[in-house]
């Protein structure tokens, strides 16, 4: 009965619509709530913990109304001791603001819940505005982009509560004609005063998540009509206008009046300098009939060069103008009357000894003084070459032969003389002596090592034994000193064949922990480099740069998650490039916004795009998300990509679906989508926890073979519009790309849907003949560039015109069979304790939480020497997952130090007649011991050091088997530590 009442108590308020009344009042937004309009409005409270129906122990309450132009909120947050409020400083627009004590106002005018608006306001009174857009996968997930609410907000902190008063103009949101008074609303709260964050909300949420719009309560925003706000602004254009030495910025847009009524607009265009906050404005007034559109321009006078946030506001023609529509974008205003850029060399303006083409091709852009003579000089190292263009044009090209230059530094300078005044621009060029292992990037974004194309393929952090398909790893170590750094890089290269991407930010303080002091993140990365940081970078980079095993510098891992300042990385990159021109800087972001924000801090972008895979075939992000990432990153910089190979997360947010490691099809889809969109390197996440799963053990090395064998094709630039396709049924996200080096064809085609598709292809190249699939046995017949094929859900196909190449690759079906065979071999018939290929969550449930599923044995041990990965789960359930010779040391067991009588004990779910125990011991580490069943001992010895020990039992009936280790070797001498581990697998028959 109590449960029923609790349920209805939670659900019933949702059923009652709440009114946001229309009151023609405009309170002063001062956080005091003393205006008369607030006094007569009731409080709404009973905030519940997210994911539960129980009320939050510390409550929040709010009031709301609208005046036809804005929607107003008064929010009171009880807090017994407001001196403990968490109020860190975050950068403007930071999505991390929720990690301060904060509230979240969520507004949805759209009954279909396709878009919603969120503003997070923290106890400092700072706010971040976000617009959520449904990601079109019917999964209730949203993509966020910045929004500018124009909210007026004031926060006041009292002794035992803090107050938010806010006013949000209706005009800051977008509407369609079908919108009406029925909205959805939720107020959420993030309370960090407690040890564990307390998340609560006015709407009862089915899981601990603020972003579930369908759970937000329905409200009636009285007298709201979308008709007042049906305007669009499109085709924005901004141009610099210079006259009489002054610079203005002219903005144009086409305004659509979809409201049906004649309208007079007060237009206000503003540029806010992102560094100084100074505002430059232009105003205008115009009118437009209903259902009409017209192009308008506004001039913003006296605008210097800079980075700006631009707003174009359409306001009512009123004594107190109300916002009707806003367009916001970032603009960079940079009038450079004369600009020099180098088309060749394409990377860092450097000429490397191993570059086959050492042409210097300079492009000189003129924005004024066209028609005058242009002089271009290349000087340095005793050279002074001159090129003259008698009559300059807008874009001028000049060539120098860099091959004949000596090593050294040069300056290429372009000058124009007008009325006795010189206008000049220059770039610096370095010609570098040969260094073994030198790394540079060509105009296609392809990395070269020692002059050879290098398709980087490897793993993030940990890796396995040497495998010829892997050539790179990301090394996140913070080294004690330079010698340990050199040894690490050298060992990775010489022992494992892996070039390293290392952190250039090293304290080198001889500490054995991984703490940072000089480079503490994020504390020291809010502004520019400190003097001490510069010195440390110079010290480390100058000493490590000559290591043959070095591939590049790993600048940051998801810096947007810690609100790092992009300028810090830009400065660091510039310094590193000066000290070590031979190795590029790479930077990893987890989202498209991060890529756009941080790209200047690196030479190569390496974003991680994690779709997240679940047991029912669903994903958190659309399966074509890797393509979105690749398109953005390659438009800004040469790019690699980090696909997800591990299972993450273990469980979906609502706890209903188990996460899985990506299947072979999933892996192929991620990697080859990136390659279609011109990504030139792949780094997988992550070896240490993916090697428990059959797909992740076999899939990545097979893909590696394709990358290495077909690198000549895959590294080439995808032919623009090289293929046209039609899918049946229609599906708009089928990915396809044509690579055609030397006229031979490699066609990549990926079905990113979970339905079968028939695809009709039309190639730009009018090829007739056969295209062969991996393995060379299957082919399609192409006639004049046309052919059709049928794709299974989530299938990737790679077609080659070169049958010899196709035949060198493993057929996909064979790899799938190998994965299935491995999976089957891991659960042997008759093995009473074997679980085989498990879900990631099961290691947690059995090892950490001791929640055993039916049939799962209870495994205990005298001790368990754990690693970071197994610190919570322990190692014991890795002894029953069917991996007898695992790739990772974490999947094995070893007793703790000081354990003189180590044992592992298995308690079966029910007694059985026991015939045999099989022990797998790496490197023969387990030398002798006994199996104890019902007090009876079955000794074993392994003097010859075999890796498999078979111990016959007499058919004794029992549910408990104890393995006692009496003689063993736990000293570790191999780089992975396997030599110290005793057991990798136990089978009981």
């Amino acid at each position, binding site marked *: 009965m109590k449960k029923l009442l609790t349920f209805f108590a939670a659900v019933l308020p949702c059923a009652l619509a709440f009114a946001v009344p229309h009151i023609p009042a405009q309170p002063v937004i001062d956080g005091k709530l003393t205006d008369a309009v607030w006094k007569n409005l009731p409080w709404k409270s009973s905030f519940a913990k997210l994911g539960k129906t129980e009320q939050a122990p510390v409550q929040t309450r709010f009031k709301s109304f609208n005046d036809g132009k804005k929607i107003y909120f008064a929010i009171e947050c009880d807090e017994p001791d407001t001196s403990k409020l968490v109020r860190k400083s975050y950068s403007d627009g930071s999505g991390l603001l929720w990690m301060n004590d904060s509230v979240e106002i969520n507004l949805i005018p759209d009954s279909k819940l396709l878009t919603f608006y969120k503003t997070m306001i923290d106890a400092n009174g700072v706010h971040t505005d976000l617009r959520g857009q449904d990601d079109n996968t019917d999964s209730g997930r949203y993509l966020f982009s910045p929004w500018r609410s124009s909210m007026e907000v004031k926060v006041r902190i009292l002794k035992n509560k803090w107050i938010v008063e806010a006013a949000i103009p209706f005009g800051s949101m977008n509407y369609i004609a079908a919108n009406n008074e029925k909205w959805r609303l939720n107020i959420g709260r993030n309370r960090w005063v407690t040890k564990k964050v307390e998340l609560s909300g006015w709407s009862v949420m089915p899981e601990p998540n603020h972003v579930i719009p369908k759970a937000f309560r329905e409200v009636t925003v009285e007298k709201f009509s979308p008709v007042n706000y049906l305007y669009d602004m499109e085709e924005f254009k901004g141009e610099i206008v210079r006259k009489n030495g002054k610079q203005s910025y002219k903005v144009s847009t086409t305004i659509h009046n979809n409201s049906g009524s004649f309208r*007079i607009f007060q237009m206000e265009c503003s540029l806010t300098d992102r560094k100084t906050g100074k505002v430059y404005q232009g105003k205008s007034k115009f009118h437009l009939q209903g*259902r009409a559109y017209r192009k308008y321009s506004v001039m913003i006078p006296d605008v210097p060069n800079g980075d700006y946030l631009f707003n174009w506001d359409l306001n009512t023609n009123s004594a107190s103008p109300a916002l009707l529509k806003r367009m916001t974008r970032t603009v960079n205003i940079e009038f450079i009357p004369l600009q020099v850029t180098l088309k060749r060399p394409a990377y860092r303006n450097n000429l490397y000894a191993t570059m086959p083409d050492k042409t210097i091709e300079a492009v000189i852009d003129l924005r004024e003084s066209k028609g005058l003579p242009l002089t271009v000089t290349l000087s340095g190292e005793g050279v002074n070459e001159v090129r003259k263009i008698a009559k300059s044009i807008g874009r001028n090209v000049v060539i120098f032969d860099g091959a004949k230059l000596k090593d050294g530094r040069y300056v290429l300078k372009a000058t124009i003389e007008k009325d006795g005044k010189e206008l000049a621009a220059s770039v610096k060029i370095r010609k570098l002596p040969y260094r073994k292992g030198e790394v540079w990037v060509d105009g296609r974004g392809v990395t070269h090592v020692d002059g050879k194309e290098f398709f980087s393929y490897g793993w993030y952090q940990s890796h396995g034994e040497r495998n010829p398909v892997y050539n790179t790893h990301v090394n996140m170590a913070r080294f004690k000193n330079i010698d340990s750094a050199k040894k690490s890089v050298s060992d990775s290269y010489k022992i494992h064949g892996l070039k390293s991407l290392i952190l250039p930010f090293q304290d080198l303080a001889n500490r054995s922990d991984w703490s940072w002091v000089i480079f503490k993140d994020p504390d020291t990365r809010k502004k520019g480099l400190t003097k001490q940081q510069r010195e440390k970078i110079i010290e480390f980079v100058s000493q490590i740069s000559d290591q043959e095993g070095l591939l590049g510098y790993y600048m940051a891992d998801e810096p947007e998650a810690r609100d790092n300042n992009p300028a810090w990385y830009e400065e660091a990159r510039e310094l590193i490039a000066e000290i070590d021109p031979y190795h590029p800087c790479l930077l990893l972001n987890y989202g498209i916004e991060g890529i756009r924000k941080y790209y200047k801090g690196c030479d190569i972008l390496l974003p991680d795009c994690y779709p997240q895979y679940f047991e029912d075939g669903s994903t958190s992000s659309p399966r074509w998300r890797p393509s979105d990432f690749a398109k953005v990153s390659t438009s800004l910089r040469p790019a690699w990509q980090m696909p997800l190979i591990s299972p993450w997360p273990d469980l979906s947010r609502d706890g209903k679906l188990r996460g899985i490691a990506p299947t072979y099809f999933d892996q192929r889809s991620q990697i080859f989508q990136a390659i279609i969109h011109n990504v030139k390197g792949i780094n997988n996440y992550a070896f240490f926890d993916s090697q428990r799963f059959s797909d992740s053990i076999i899939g990545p090395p097979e893909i590696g073979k394709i990358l290495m064998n077909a690198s000549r094709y895959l590294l080439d630039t995808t032919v623009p519009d090289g293929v046209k396709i039609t899918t049946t049924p229609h599906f708009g996200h089928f990915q396809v790309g044509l690579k055609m080096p030397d006229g031979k064809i490699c066609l990549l085609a990926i079905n990113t849907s979970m339905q079968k598709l028939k695809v009709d292809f039309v190639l730009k190249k009018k090829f007739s003949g056969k295209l062969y699939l991996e393995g060379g046995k299957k082919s399609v017949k192409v006639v004049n560039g046309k052919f059709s094929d049928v794709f299974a859900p989530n299938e990737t196909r790679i077609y080659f015109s070169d049958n010899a190449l196709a035949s060198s690759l493993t057929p996909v079906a064979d790899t799938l069979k190998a994965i299935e065979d491995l999976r089957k071999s891991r659960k042997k018939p008759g093995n009473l304790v074997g679980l085989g290929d498990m879900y990631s969550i099961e290691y947690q449930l059995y090892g950490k939480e001791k929640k055993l599923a039916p049939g799962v044995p209870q495994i205990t041990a005298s001790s368990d020497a754990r690693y970071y990965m197994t610190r919570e789960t322990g190692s014991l359930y890795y002894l029953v997952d069917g991996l007898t010779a695992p790739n990772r040391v974490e999947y094995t067991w070893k007793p703790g130090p000081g354990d003189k009588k180590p044992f592992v004990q298995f308690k079966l779910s029910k007694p059985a007649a026991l015939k045999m125990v099989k022990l797998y011991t790496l490197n023969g580490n387990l030398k002798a011991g006994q199996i104890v069943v019902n007090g009876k001992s079955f000794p074993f010895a392994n003097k010859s050091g075999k890796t498999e020990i078979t111990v016959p039992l007499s058919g004794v009936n029992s549910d408990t088997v104890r393995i006692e280790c009496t003689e063993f070797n736990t000293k570790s001498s191999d780089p992975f530590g396997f030599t110290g581990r005793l057991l990798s697998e136990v089978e009981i028959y």
Partner: protein
Amino acid sequence: MKKVFLFLLLLSAVTVFGQQKAYSLKATLVGEKDIFAPGDMIKFKMTYTCPETHRMAGWYVMGYTKNLPASFPAALNVKVRGKDPNWQAVHFTTWKWFPKGKEKDVVEFSTKGWPEGDYQISVTTIFRNKVKSETKTDKYIGSDLVFTLEK
């Protein structure tokens, strides 16, 4: 003969065109503001030119529905004329006549009963020959006023 005829034809075309250019009208609100309250009198100035032979004889204001708030016709209980939505119009005043010699260039009209909203009102003036003539030589010239009514 043909040439003379063509010359006369050309001359008359130029004359007519020249006469067209001789007429102009610009209506502007008096004062700085363009925001009024419903019920206010809207005062505006007519700056015009016309040939010596003609004078401004009268004016009136009307509105095309596309330039008015949607609720205007119902609020004033006036009929919307015309079928083409681009040219549907509402006439809410009659002609205001100037006796000879008593022409004014600043006039006004009432917004009593008008709903709040944005307006583009069409001002039309009539120019007439100072001397009565058998031939009709009236000329109608228009200009627009743009303003907002808010409480």
